[in-house]
């Protein structure tokens, strides 16, 4: 399995989104078909199939929950609870529907039920971070800008942050985002719009400074 964790030689290991890890590219059609098979098998009681689903979604789900909670342990607990609930509710999953959206809806419900009102103490941004060598180099930000971006994302209102990350990291459509967050498609579009607008306003000066 492609490692998505960077060890920094201290107590913390930091991870990027799996899609941004070298070698993690999957053929979308094959991935979707494979997931449908896995879900069917899991619903039939195949534990290994559910294990494969957990392997597939654990890191990305945890990342999203971390961005919502700003708390490592909280995100970890919510991720575990989500998969546990999903395992127990497989029988209610409608075959053919979007498993990822279903999983994230469970996660979001857990977040709303258990965490939303908790005070959040943000984890510190790592002091050292090796920039991954992939993609157009001019598109990869400096550490300082990445730090600013992380802070700006963290300061987005949760109702904007959640759909924005579902759109950008999970590539869910506005319709799927609406289903996850139980809002209308138009509201999902509006919130992503506002999130992008805020981020662009905050980062514009820094990005201009870095412009080659």
């Amino acid at each position, binding site marked *: 399995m492609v490692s998505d964790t960077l060890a920094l030689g201290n107590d913390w*290991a*930091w991870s990027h989104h799996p899609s*941004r890890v070298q070698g993690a590219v999957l053929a979308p059609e094959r991935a979707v078909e494979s997931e449908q098979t896995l879900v069917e098998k899991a619903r039939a009681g195949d534990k290994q199939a559910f294990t494969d689903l*957990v392997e597939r979604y654990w890191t990305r789900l945890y990342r999203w929950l971390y961005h919502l909670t700003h708390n490592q342990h909280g995100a970890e607990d919510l991720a575990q609870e989500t998969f546990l609930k999903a395992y127990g509710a497989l029988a209610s999953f409608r075959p053919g529907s979007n498993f990822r959206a279903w999983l994230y809806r469970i996660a979001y419900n857990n977040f709303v039920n258990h965490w939303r009102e908790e005070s959040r103490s943000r984890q510190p941004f790592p002091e050292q971070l090796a920039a991954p060598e992939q993609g157009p180099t001019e598109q990869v930000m400096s550490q300082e*800008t990445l730090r600013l971006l992380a802070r700006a994302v963290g300061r987005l209102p949760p109702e904007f942050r959640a759909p924005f990350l579902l759109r950008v990291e999970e590539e869910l459509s506005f319709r799927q985002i609406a289903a996850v967050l139980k809002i209308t498609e138009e509201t999902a579009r509006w919130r992503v719009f506002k999130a992008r607008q805020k981020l662009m306003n905050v980062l514009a000066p820094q990005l201009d400074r870095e412009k080659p």
Partner: protein
Amino acid sequence: MNCEMVQRRLLASEKPDQPPSELADHLATCGSCQDWHRRLLQVELNIGLIPVPAVPFSRQSFLDRLNRNKALPMPKGELSSRRLLRWAYPLSGVAAATLLFIIFWKGHSERPVAEAAKKTARPDLVSSLLARDVKLAKASTSQERISELSKLAEDLQGETRHLARVAAPGDLLALANLYKRVVEDGIIKRATALPAKDRPKILKPIVEGLARVRLEAEDLAQEVPQAAASLQVIALAARKGNDDLTGLLAATKGGTQ
């Protein structure tokens, strides 16, 4: 089409990196919007690079548990009870602590459980507790949670009584203290969150059950003196639970809560 309109449409687009033709035409001729568009794509591209702290053990721990469906694994090098408790927290603070203790107790008790106890302990207790935790995690209402906690308490006090004659006193006492925690921190706390109209129907059977547990524990404590301390803990917890829930029902009936 002016720049502001183009940028707003891109911000609202599902895929700003694939602008429709009318927007692409504008971008092709407007340097300012080209720069702006490039910054937008750069921002979105780098979102995935924002680091988050990794949790190397929790996924594997979860998977190990799922696949074994018997004992909960302990993360390598991290044997503290605090770590174990936090790992199981999402199930339910009380039920998870109980489940963890049961597993830890069976495998790692400081005073070895008597061979007779190991042989007579209900072999499906761990599986039933695991199933109970799955239901607890699935429970979405206070009623469902109280129902599962009540069953969990039954399992715990039943196990304690079952092992009263053979288990080490220290182990029994720890088991009894867990029963106490389930009743006081689980059932009683959640009972106050129940809608008033639902309380009689849900709580009356539990009240009756607690009264029965108290009497049975007190009786057994007289028969098995070596287990009296543990059985008294159960009896007292059951009595307190009974008193508190009875008081809550009376207050509900009187319209004060």
